[in-house]
């Protein structure tokens, strides 16, 4: 039997904190929450596109993680494990609402319908457009795009979180991007994005 460290220092690793929590340290889990709540919030908010739903999902996820800490196997990073719980909480909510995939013309119509009010800042405007567009994707594609394109995780990390092969993550991202392209393409011409995206486009085109 391996005995874990009794008292984690302030710079304790996530794994040490989780062990301390399992052993009854009443503050260890709060520290884990403090460290990761912003990222978990971002994932849930972007995946669900609704602050109330996201708050419920993140709360469910943290409470579940609190209770289920004993089942953490230590094979993955604690952050991966937390992400997985949060993403699954989100997917679960989306599936219960039975979001259906929609056709391309519906996507465009909906994006226009949901387009933001003119008195908002550009940043918020883009953010809302993106949110509205993401909502039109099937849950699996949305979750993959949030992790990879929005949160900047590697395909491999996203695959671990989603518990699917890397190839599946790539193909969900590809299909998701293909659906979003007609809706978000007008944002390409914004000065702050166009130079980057055309360079990237050239890079992709030239292999």
């Amino acid at each position: 039997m391996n005995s874990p460290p009794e008292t984690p220092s302030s710079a304790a690793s996530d794994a040490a904190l989780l062990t301390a929590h399992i052993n009854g340290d009443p503050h260890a889990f709060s520290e884990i929450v403090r460290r990761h709540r912003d990222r978990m919030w971002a994932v849930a908010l972007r995946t669900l596109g609704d602050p109330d739903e996201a708050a419920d999902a993140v709360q469910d996820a943290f409470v579940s993680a609190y209770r289920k800490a004993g089942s953490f196997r230590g094979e993955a990073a604690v952050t991966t494990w937390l992400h997985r719980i949060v993403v699954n909480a989100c997917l679960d909510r989306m599936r219960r609402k039975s979001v259906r995939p929609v056709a391309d013309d519906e996507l465009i119509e909906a994006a226009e319908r949901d387009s933001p009010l003119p008195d908002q800042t550009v940043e918020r405007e883009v953010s809302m457009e993106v949110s509205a567009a993401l909502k039109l994707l099937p849950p699996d594609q949305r979750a993959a795009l949030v992790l990879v394109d929005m949160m900047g995780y590697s395909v491999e990390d996203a695959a671990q979180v989603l518990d699917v092969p890397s190839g599946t993550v790539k193909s969900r991202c590809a299909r998701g991007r293909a659906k979003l392209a007609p809706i978000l393409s007008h944002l390409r011409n914004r000065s702050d994005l166009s130079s980057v995206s055309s360079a990237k486009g050239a890079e992709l085109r030239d292999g």
Partner: protein
Amino acid sequence: MTGDTHYDLEILAELAEGLLDAGTATRVREHLAVCDPCGERLADLAAVREVLAATPVPAMPVGVAKRIEQALAAERSGVGVLVEDAPPVVEEPVRLGVVADDGTIVPAAPSRRRRRTARRWAMPAAAVAAAAAVIGTVTVTNLAATGTGSSLLAGPSSEGPQASPSMNAALAYSLTQSDYNYSAATLRQPLSDFLAPATIINDPGDVSKCATEVRTRTKRAPFAVDRAMYNGNEALIMVSWRNQAAKQVYIDVVDPFFCKPIRKATTGSW
């Protein structure tokens, strides 16, 4: 060379992800080199990634962070269950979900924990008495009816004359199966609340061996054993007296398969 057909966004997106086989990828690239509309579409795809990456990621609002702290504090103090029954202290009931082993969330309501609590308390004391089984040498009557729990143990306490590791027959405990999911927080509450109302069962065969092992290892003789869960894992909760008059107990939590401790032994109350 390239035909007149253009490639749709999905093919182009797969090209960008390296998902196409070499032959197809080459054909699409050759087409892209001479086809402006397809080149545009590829640029649109790249723009999607850029737009998504450039979308700001907000921090968790203070209100949400507070709500989560409250939910976890309730969980810690073991009153997480009660919040739903009591007048709301947060703006909405704490919703409970359970993560299965594969990481999926089992829908919240009604929570397993709450359901079990309700069912346990709904069980009439007479039914518990009727279901009572006696294990070992000591006659145990009705756990639920004692209230204090002090009449429970007529036999060996940990200091008792019979408490020698070699005397397996002297090991007397009530064996219950609550299937309750204990946590560090619930172990700090009076354990008779959990064990006394639980269904008393006959030893399926593995418990007495494990109880003896624990006793040999710890020199503590459990007077109550509950087949249950600990943080989601199957567990045997073994309770032995530390100070019977003061209703202080030692709690050993071991796995039912290898009888190894799942957590450090701790002290609690009965």
